[in-house]
């Protein structure tokens, strides 16, 4: 069991690492494979001109980037159990710009103990430096009670 999971009781709020959406990391996610000829792909997540052509005033970071931060934080909490039935449902209420700093947050809503397992129900979100939510939803993960090495 991870140290984070040991802390996860109903009402407990856990904050993940804060990460800045630098151009280098945005290009790594949205620019296509590094060995693709002409890398990076030009799109509204990587290229100012492409973003302007789409009616935006600049690059917007792909939502997959901070959905990935949230999913990674859930793996930090649940360990390999996340890969055997971890699930989240989210919405993305606002866009994220280059150099914004984002942080995933989870709040444990309930832990249901059933035969041989514990089902964790979480509220999840990602917030920017102003405290605004840029992703919001729920998550759940089942952890076998007999497994102590998550």
């Amino acid at each position: 069991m991870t140290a984070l999971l040991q802390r996860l009781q109903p009402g407990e709020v856990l904050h993940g690492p804060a990460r800045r959406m630098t151009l280098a990391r945005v290009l790594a996610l949205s620019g296509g494979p590094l060995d693709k000829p002409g890398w990076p792909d030009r799109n509204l997540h990587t290229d100012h001109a492409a973003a302007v052509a789409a009616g935006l005033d600049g690059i917007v970071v792909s939502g997959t980037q901070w959905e990935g931060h949230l999913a990674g934080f859930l793996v930090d909490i649940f360990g390999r159990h996340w890969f055997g039935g971890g699930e989240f449902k989210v919405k993305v209420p606002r866009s994220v710009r280059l150099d914004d700093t984002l942080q995933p947050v989870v709040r444990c809503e309930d832990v249901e103990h059933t035969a041989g397992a514990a089902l964790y129900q979480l509220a999840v979100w990602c917030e920017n430096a102003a405290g605004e939510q840029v992703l919001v939803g729920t998550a759940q993960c089942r952890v076998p009670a007999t497994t102590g090495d998550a």
Partner: protein
Amino acid sequence: MPGPYAHELQAGDRYDGYGFTATAELHQQFLFAVEDYNRLYLDGDGDGPPLVHPVLLMHMTPRTRSPSFALAPGMGSALARDQASWLQPVHVGEALRVDWTVTRTYEQRGRIYQDYVATVHDSRGDLVFRRDTSSTFFTLAMGTSA
């Protein structure tokens, strides 16, 4: 002449699937992208190669990855809701296949919405990841693609 545009597809229609391999190079690129170096992604869990970070499957499963995905001129699309389920561990080096099926289309407040399911199967045919997404279409200058 392109095939049907994305917003024209109806429940039961499919986007063309595709395959990819979660190579070490591609995987490490995405670890850098999300700044996440959990030991599970570097050393594995003691049962085979390193585990693939969740973000790689998420990145490969929007319908925009489909070879047949095409937006009509002047139209964009945006994510409305997303449900992602990790069902089996995926290890670095595995060959994977992604498929998409439209599950529902409807209009709301003058916008077209399309729900679709993306599935990822490994080379043994096991379902390893499922993603149920709701998206909306709009004329350009209103939002972002997803």
